[in-house]
Every structure is written in structure tokens, then in C-alpha cells.
């Protein structure tokens, strides 16, 4: 791709705007697991009028904000191994219990990043096939959480579509994604394709289709 092509593409919503849209869609009282990276932005946009309970798969339910300098305790960390805090009403458990919350269908929502998502809701986000393969809890989360949200840029760094007909990378889960939030649009994964829920006003449908390999339903 040339620089000219990159400049011609619209930026759409920024990361914080996407995070805010997801935050608005998380219902009061829900149990939520936020993936490492972009999804970590979501919690700061949750309306003060509702309470969300955050799960971290290393055995922490009721996770609070990142630890301030004076709060740092390397025995109180999140799944990204960063020092965090625990809120009143929080609890600790061992790994089998923590993953029973996931695998047993008790987590209402998980939000993860993506390398590719197919029109059938297949997700690839754990390995490109090169380097050290490392999966962590991603396969458990997509198989077990009641709703699996993907938060991602619409295009790769090379400006190729991440929303594809069929994933080319190794899968994290098959037919697991329920909703996709990108900088261009929000989609629900349906039986016959990706149903467009909302589109950024900087772009039109023709632009969206051009930059999406997956089938979009208007």
C-alpha cells in the first residue's frame, strides 16, 4: 500500500470513542472480563449510575482501577500482570474456580481484540503462526462467556480488512463472536452475515463495503 492510500482512508471513531460505545452497551450489574490492550480503556467510560463487576482470570472478581504508586503490591495483579486494586465486594479465588466462572457461562460479557473476525463469528487473535505460540485464557473466554464482543481497528496496519469471509490465521474460537466494534461501525454477528447496527458519520455504506471482506447486512 502507498502513503496516498493510507491518507485517503478516514480515521472514524478513535479508541476512546469506541471504548465509550462499548461501555454504554454493558448493562448495570453485569460481570465483565476486559481483555488486555484496547479493551482496558472501556471501564473509565462506564456511566457512574451503573455498577459493573470486573473479572480478571487470574482469580480476582471485583477488580478496581490500576494501582497508584503507593498501592503497588505484586501479589495483587491483573491478567496482564499489572498491579491493580480490589473494590469493596471483591473476592479472590484459585484458577480452576476463576475459569469455572468463564467456562461455566457465568461471565456475561468479555471484550477482546482481534487479528481477524469472519462473517460467521470465527475469531483469530492468538497467534500469527510465527514466534512463540501463547494463548492464555482467550480460548476459554470466547467458548464460555455469554456475549463475546470484539473491539478492533477495522483495517490492519497494511489497510487490509480484518472482517473477512473466512479467517486465514489460526482460530481462537469458531462461531463465537456476538458483536464487533470497529472505528468505522458496529455489527451483530447473524446467521447470514454481519448486521450493521451503527456506522461512523465520516463514512458511507459504499466505503464500508469496500473495506470489509465479510458480508454486511444493511
Amino acid at each position: 500500500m502507498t502513503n496516498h492510500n493510507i491518507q485517503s482512508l478516514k480515521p472514524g471513531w478513535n479508541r476512546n470513542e469506541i471504548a465509550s460505545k462499548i461501555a454504554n452497551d454493558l448493562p448495570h450489574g453485569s460481570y465483565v472480563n476486559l481483555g488486555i490492550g484496547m479493551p482496558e480503556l472501556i471501564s473509565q467510560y462506564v456511566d457512574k449510575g451503573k455498577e459493573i463487576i470486573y473479572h480478571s482470570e487470574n482469580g480476582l472478581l471485583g477488580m478496581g482501577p490500576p494501582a497508584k504508586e503507593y498501592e503497588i503490591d505484586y501479589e495483587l495483579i491483573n491478567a496482564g500482570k499489572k498491579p491493580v486494586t480490589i473494590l469493596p465486594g471483591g473476592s479472590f479465588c484459585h484458577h480452576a474456580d476463576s475459569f469455572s466462572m468463564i467456562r461455566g457461562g457465568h461471565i456475561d460479557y468479555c471484550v477482546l481484540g482481534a487479528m481477524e473476525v469472519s462473517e460467521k463469528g470465527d475469531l483469530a487473535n492468538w497467534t500469527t503462526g510465527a514466534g512463540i505460540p501463547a494463548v492464555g485464557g482467550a480460548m476459554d473466554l470466547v467458548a464460555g462467556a455469554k456475549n463475546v464482543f470484539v473491539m478492533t481497528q477495522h483495517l490492519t496496519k497494511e489497510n487490509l480488512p480484518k472482517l473477512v469471509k473466512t479467517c486465514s490465521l489460526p482460530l481462537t474460537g469458531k462461531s463465537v463472536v456476538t458483536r464487533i466494534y470497529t472505528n468505522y461501525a458496529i455489527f451483530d454477528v447473524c446467521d447470514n452475515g454481519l448486521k450493521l447496527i451503527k456506522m461512523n458519520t465520516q463514512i458511507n455504506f459504499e466505503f464500508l463495503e469496500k473495506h470489509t471482506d465479510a458480508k454486511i447486512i444493511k
Partner: protein
Amino acid sequence: MEVNKLINSINDAVAEVFDGATIMIGGFGEAGSPVELIHALIDHGSKNLTVIANNAGNGRIGLGALIGQRQVKKVICSFARSPKSITFKEQYENNEIELEVVPQGTLAERIRSAGAGIPGFYTATAVGTPLASEKESKFFDGKEYILETALSADFAFIKAENSDRYGNLSYSKTARNFNPIMSMAAKQTIVQVKNIVGESLTDPEKVITPGIFVDKIVEVNNPIIETNAIDNGEVYP
């Protein structure tokens, strides 16, 4: 005569580890990782070990050091990639160490199952992915699951906060992680603990791992804090 699982010397605690043993090592990253027991194992010198852990070590202390000393032939873990990993990365890239990648929840459940006498179980995790290839699958109520088998070990290295002479354990915050389930899944469970309390843990309601799962306890009052040690450039031995 009283039951007493306390051992004075950390070197004695790991003395029965043999070449070719399979060892579970507790911890999620540095939280709950029994660094001093691992260092005692480096001194002990056992080779051709298979390590079951969530990660594959950071820097050149703890599990990172054990791998660096070329005592480990295989790692079974969920996440071997870390910005601070040196030794595993080097040996993996040179095809000098084996890796079995297991999804984190499946890893935990395989360990728990071994401790509970369950030889295998079906799970939806990893269905349709490369990690399900060659695994038996079965449909329940129209949904596909794969068969995973129990994962046991010869030894478990555990880090806990408090213990009494019976081996009843309590933990600190998210340093609990894999420690309670690994303590159930090994033939011999060796624990390093920050505080040994008197006759018994003061409140039976606070016992997380009952003493039946523990064989040996050694006191390590001021364990290494991995982040600080790596930032200070510490290496072992």
C-alpha cells in the same frame, strides 16, 4: 508423636527431586511463584525436567534461571511469551526446549481433575482451533466438545502466605492462582511459606488448602520480588 511437615533446610525440601521428573510450579507471572524453591532445585541440579506452569519465566531468576541452567526439556503452559522472557525464548528459537501450549482454563481444569481423581473431561474450549487437532470430540445437546485428560506431576512447588505444622495453607491475594490446585495434583507437594504460625492456623475458616494435600513446608520470610530483582539485574546462581 506429632504430625510436623516443617523442614528447616530448603535444600532438604527439594532433595528427592530426580532427573526426568515432572514438576508443577505455582504462580501467575511472579505472583505466587516459589522462586526460592526453584533456586534450591538449581542447586540440587536435577536435569531433563518437565515443567507445568502458566508461564515460562522472566529474566534469569526463578523459572527463567532454571531454564537458563538447561535443566528443563519441556514446558507445558498457557502463555510462554513475555516481554521479560529471555531464557525460554532463546532455547525455543534454537529448538532446544519443547513447548506444549494449553489454554489457561483447560490447564487449570486438567490439574484440578488430576487432584480429584478424574481422568478426563469434555470442554468447549479450543473446539475448531489448532489446539483441538487429534483430540476426540463428542456432541452433547447438539454442541461440540473435546476430550481433555488429567495432568498430574511427581512434585508440586507451591508458594503460600501462612502455614501451620499440619500444612494447612492460606494465600495472599492473587498469589493464590494455580497453587491450591497444583498442591492437589502431585505425588509430593513442597511449599515455601512466608509465615509459619504456631500450633494451627488461627481460623479454620481461612484454610484454603487443607493440610492433606501438603507434604513438606519450608519457611522463606522475605521472598524475592521478581519485578524488583529483574529491574536490579539480579541473576541466579
